[in-house]
């Protein structure tokens, strides 16, 4: 049984390359479109380095926070990662502002100008994250470990840790591109329900993003 051999632990600076790879794979979903590259006019290798630079800042409370990540490891080798944080916990800024601060300070100025010129592509699918909810983001598991229940275990651990920080926590949210049917089904199996669908009507959406529709899923904690 895989459950006998893996351990779940918080990410450390040593895990940066794995987390960066996990974020890139999760961003792509089941497409080859990496929006952090396409929207910013940079390549995947640059994104890989920039993600690590953002994580190194150790700013808590968003999807590019090192402290957001839990990893599953076997023999000290990471095999899965899931990000999760409580939105605006303890007076933190909204995660979208923290994220844009990190990008703004890390990405080349020229690439930020390129992304700003393409803002209409993502405007309709930017989903507001509910204050004080647990946000799950960047779910990744190596192919050979899929179907083992490990992702479910990582998300459950995130929920347990979040409840220790905030016993009033009642909502868990996850966002997924509409073409990632396997992920949607997996989240439904865990207790998430589709809350709302967001469609980008910009005709360039499919050129730059994995899909032109994003789905907000929610799990209500009993």
């Amino acid at each position, binding site marked *: 049984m895989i459950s006998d051999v893996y351990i779940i632990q918080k990410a450390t600076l040593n895990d940066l390359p794995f987390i960066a790879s996990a974020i890139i794979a999760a961003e792509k979903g089941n497409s080859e479109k990496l929006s952090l590259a396409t929207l910013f006019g940079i390549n995947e290798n640059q994104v890989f380095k920039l993600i690590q630079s953002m994580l190194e800042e150790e700013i808590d409370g968003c999807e590019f926070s090192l402290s957001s990540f839990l990893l599953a490891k076997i023999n000290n080798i990471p095999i899965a990662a899931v990000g999760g944080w409580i939105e605006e916990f303890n007076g933190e800024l909204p995660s979208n502002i923290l994220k844009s*601060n990190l990008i*703004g300070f890390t990405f080349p100025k020229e690439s930020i100008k390129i992304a700003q010129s393409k803002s209409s592509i993502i405007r309709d699918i930017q989903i507001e994250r509910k204050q004080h909810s647990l946000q799950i983001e960047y779910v990744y598991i190596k192919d050979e470990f899929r179907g083992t229940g490990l992702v479910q275990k990582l998300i459950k651990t995130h929920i347990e840790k979040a409840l220790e920080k905030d016993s009033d926590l009642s909502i868990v949210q996850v966002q997924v591109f509409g073409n990632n049917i396997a992920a949607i089904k997996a989240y439904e199996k865990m207790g998430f329900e589709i809350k709302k669908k967001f469609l980008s009507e910009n005709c360039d959406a499919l050129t730059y993003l994995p899909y032109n529709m994003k789905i907000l899923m929610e799990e209500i904690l009993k």
Partner: protein
Amino acid sequence: MSELEVREKITEIIVANLGHHDFEFNDELTAEDVRGWDSLSHMAIITSIEERFQIKFKIREITKLKNMKTLIELVQSKI
């Protein structure tokens, strides 16, 4: 530079970046209160503030800002 001057310049920057003035500039104002102040426009606003006042923020300073009052105080501390 007086607080009033900083406040006026920041207002101009926000209006120039968002293309509207449908907000009341007070100490408690946050990005969430202003229509169109999303993650992409936030980057542009912060960059414009740095350029206009010829200052450089540190990321830890920016991520601690709570509202306009703290932004004005931070800008004033750097000019």
